[in-house]
């Protein structure tokens, strides 16, 4: 009896009870598909969050105020994830008179002698949900940012069409604006927006550039933005109140932490924060944030995998159950096989092969279902199939077949021929 023949016998045995085999296979299929798909969803969510964080800009630190009304806006992350990466300044303790972030703070941070690790500083004001019109078309810009030209580099927002605005524009408070793809599409359709004048809440701005598409982030549309010179936005839209944030770009990836402590020193001094007093601002460090988030999503993925693993286990028990029924049902057949000289190993092999085949077919179909399922967006996340989870799920399903099949198979192999033949 060679291996191929054992497999053929097993396939025959399974084919004899198609419905039963199919249902058992389904149990494994669901388990394997669940493991792969849920891990893929976890991975997809994690990658999405990571890329959102990256989109904040390379080597950048976001300083935002912790006073009421201070930290509004800021790309959503300051609000959503701010708790994760705040650094040592956070906490609730005695607070000296809280100060807002000002353009003067930003200027102080740009002082090379105090902050050698800082490459650029961009003060930011946010004017969100601004109704904008161009001729007949109207669109509400989700996020309108008033800032300095350095913002484009620090926040990783390159222009694909037209130009940035320049320091001159800032100094002269010119009403020029760079718009995101979504804004361009909604207002201009196929027209070229460059040089056109749009009305933002009644104030005319001239479009000088269009940003490169950054894609939807799952939380918000990254292209539904517009960027204009800080004084122009303050004059016409927000007034000269406190800054929303200050975006600081470090000179390199290895100086981000140094930049953070330099910023802390400068701001602590300017805001009069000493000793145990709690700071009235917080610094969002991209690297720290990334670590925290990946740790959190790791746990989340593990939990999903554990839940799916349980369903795989249940599928395995299904195999034991069905194989026990099969062995009982075919006791007489086992007796006949033994009477004509079947060695123990052949019987054991046959039933083990049946169980393993059930689980392997289930596993392969499960992989197929999971891979197909991963093409769709699930709960707002596009799943990313992790190859190791496929290998693991398949391996586990085969192991389950062997493990859960071995008890019934052993029982079949150990039957005494005469007892098996007499079995009714």
């Amino acid at each position: 009896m060679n291996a191929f023949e054992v497999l053929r016998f097993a396939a025959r045995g399974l084919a004899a009870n198609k419905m039963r085999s199919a249902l058992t296979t389904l149990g494994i299929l669901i388990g394997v598909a669940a493991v792969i798909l849920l891990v893929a969803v976890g991975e997809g969510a994690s990658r999405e969050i990571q890329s959102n964080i990256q989109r904040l800009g390379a080597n950048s630190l976001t300083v935002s105020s912790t006073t009421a009304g201070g930290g509004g806006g800021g790309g959503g992350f300051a609000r959503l994830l701010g708790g994760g990466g705040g650094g040592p300044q956070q906490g609730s303790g005695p607070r000296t008179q809280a100060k807002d972030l000002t353009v003067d703070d930003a200027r102080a941070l740009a002082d090379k002698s105090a902050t050698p690790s800082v490459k650029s500083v961009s003060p930011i004001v946010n004017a969100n949900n601004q109704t904008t019109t161009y001729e007949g078309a109207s669109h509400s810009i989700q996020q309108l940012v008033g800032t300095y030209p350095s913002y484009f580099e620090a926040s990783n927002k390159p222009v694909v069409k037209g130009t940035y605005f320049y320091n001159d524009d800032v100094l002269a408070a010119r009403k020029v604006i760079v718009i995101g793809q979504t804004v361009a599409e909604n207002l201009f359709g196929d027209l070229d927006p460059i040089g056109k004048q749009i009305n933002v809440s009644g104030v005319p701005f001239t479009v000088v550039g269009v940003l490169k598409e950054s894609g939807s982030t799952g939380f918000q549309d990254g292209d539904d933005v517009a960027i204009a010179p800080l004084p122009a936005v303050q004059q016409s839209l927000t007034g000269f109140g406190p800054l929303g944030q200050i975006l600081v770009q470090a000179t390199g990836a290895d100086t981000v932490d140094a930049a953070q402590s330099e910023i802390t020193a400068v701001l602590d001094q300017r805001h009069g924060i000493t000793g145990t007093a709690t700071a009235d601002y917080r610094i969002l460090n991209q690297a720290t944030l990334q670590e925290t988030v990946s740790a959190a999503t790791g746990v989340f993925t593990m939990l999903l995998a554990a839940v799916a693993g349980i369903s795989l286990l249940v599928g395995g028990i299904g195999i034991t159950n069905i194989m026990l029924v099969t062995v009982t049902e075919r006791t007489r057949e086992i007796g006949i096989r033994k009477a004509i000289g079947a060695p123990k190993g052949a019987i054991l092999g046959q039933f083990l092969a049946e169980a393993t085949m059930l689980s392997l077919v289930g596993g392969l179909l499960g992989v197929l279902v999971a891979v197909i399922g991963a093409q769709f967006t699930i709960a707002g996340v596009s799943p990313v199939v992790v190859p190791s989870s496929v290998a693991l799920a398949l391996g586990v399903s085969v192991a389950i077949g062997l493990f859960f099949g071995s008890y019934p198979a052993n029982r079949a192999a150990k039957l005494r021929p005469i007892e098996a033949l007499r079995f009714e």
Partner: protein
Amino acid sequence: MTPLVLDLQDIRKVYGEGETAVHALRGVSLAVEPGDYVAIMGASGSGKSTLMNIIGCLDVPSSGSYRLDGTDVGVLDDVRLAIVRNRKIGFVFQSFNLIPRMSALMNVELPLAYGGIKAAERRRRALAALERVGLADRVHHQPNELSGGQQQRVAIARSLVNAPTLLLADEPTGALDSTSTRDVLAIFDQLSLTGRTIVVITHESDVAAHAKRVVRLMDGQIVEDVRRSDVAGPPPRLEEVAG
């Protein structure tokens, strides 16, 4: 001298123990020479099937010694017993005992498969065996597509295919009508003529009449052992059936 095919010495078999113990065999001694055709007769419950199971290595005696073709079967382990059943014994059961959902050919090939014979050789020998029992045109039928007589002939083909030392049949005609019975007995007569050793268990004297030797069992003991014709000669009813 060739060894005895069967050499049973004082075989006893007790089912259960204590008050409820059943003494199915109470000291059976039997020697069968190569080429003999033995019918074992007896009333229901006399221990015929018990004896057959022991001879066929499906069951072990409570006491006594048993040599099959010169080998002491009592000392063999499971693996060796499986080989003995495969090579030395061909079984024919009253209830056919073919494996369902497998074609006649595959059923006949099965002992060869367990014996480790290559697929092509297996097919050739299985087809030859089926030819011999007159079923060359039914090789791809499954058991449930065959009549009782045809199923029993497939079973005989299966028992012969390994060229066993001993053909063992327990009431092979018990579930068959007179025509099929005649077919089966004719095959046995032919096999006996070619020198195959056959032991048939039956309670029909018509069947026993074909054997060269008739052993009668009663309450687990041999009470009569009659030779009808010579071991080396042809079976007594050969002409009758062939003609």
